[in-house]
């Protein structure tokens, strides 16, 4: 790198010039925020606070969307009513030391809305666990090595579900112990599931489960503090 280039990268808070290998599509939430900022009227451009994410009302000047790097857990003995069990893992090690995490939001995306008759309103149960100990690959994790974070039922009517995991993500960073999460989705036992046509057909509509991602907002104390001091 030429000296100028490395100094410019440094001023942008980057230690090296990134070299992406398999560029992924830009998440729509980031593109929307980028477009909002770009098209905001020039009259209040100077007034915008680049160190605050208005869309989530949190301090921050860096927003990342991490793709899930986990894998499905295939149980040798299928558990009653369980449609899927997946390990979720988001590699937050790319966050730089001077970045303060201010928000983390998990999105579970389904490939389509279930407004058509077959899936309308079927009720599922979702449980999200924080893993505190690793279990062997493909083996279900033991109860004692995980903490229940979320347990809720939902009717699969929407494209995605959002969960605030700011506390969990801050723990990952503070104790640098990120062992991921376990996601379980099962049929709600209440609606007489066992009486109708078998687990597979009940889980059929949940098969539209597409993917999970974690949106993380951080505040670069180096960039946001220095500029504030200068302005004052």
């Amino acid at each position: 790198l030429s000296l100028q280039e490395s100094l410019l990268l440094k001023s942008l808070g980057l230690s090296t010039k990134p070299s992406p290998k398999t560029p992924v599509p830009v998440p729509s939430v980031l593109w929307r925020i980028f477009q909002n900022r770009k098209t905001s009227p020039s009259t209040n451009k100077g007034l915008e606070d680049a160190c605050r994410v208005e869309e989530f009302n949190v301090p921050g000047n860096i927003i990342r969307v991490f793709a899930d790097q986990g894998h499905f857990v295939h149980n040798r003995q299928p558990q009653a009513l369980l449609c899927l069990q997946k390990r979720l893992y988001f590699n937050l090690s790319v966050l730089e030391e001077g970045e303060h995490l201010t928000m983390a939001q998990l999105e579970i995306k389904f490939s389509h809305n279930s407004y058509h008759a077959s899936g309308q309103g079927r009720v599922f149960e979702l449980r999200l666990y924080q893993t505190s100990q690793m279990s062997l690959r493909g083996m279900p994790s033991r109860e004692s090595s995980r903490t229940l974070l979320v347990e809720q039922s939902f009717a699969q009517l929407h494209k995605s579900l959002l969960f605030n995991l700011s506390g969990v993500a801050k723990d990952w960073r503070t104790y640098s112990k990120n062992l991921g999460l376990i996601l379980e989705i099962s049929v709600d036992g209440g609606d007489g599931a066992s009486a109708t046509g078998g687990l597979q057909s009940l889980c059929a509509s949940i098969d539209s489960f597409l993917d999970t991602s974690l949106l993380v907002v951080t505040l670069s104390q180096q960039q946001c503090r220095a500029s504030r001091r200068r302005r004052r």
Partner: protein
Amino acid sequence: SADSPPVTPSNLCKPRRLYISFSDVGWENWIIAPQGYMANYCLGECPFPLTAELNSTNHAILQTMVHSLDPQGTPQPCCVPVRLSPISILYYDNNDNVVLRHYEDMVVDECGC
């Protein structure tokens, strides 16, 4: 673009057009958007007497006066940015994550003495 400074020939202190193209510096494979942006810069004289539109500080008014009396001993005040805007950059990091990053004070909107 709509927010670029007016192009009126003048040697007074004011913003000058400067477009930064990321592809010119070979960054197009990791910066997703924008492809470049109008950064502008300040250039021009701060002559005595300083007029209101030159966004001058009281000290600059004083300095122009002294400069007019003793041009060799005291220089003119500087022409510097007095209002700047942020920009946002979408890019891929080394782990192929998409990052949206906001940077303060990257566009010169107004200059002053």
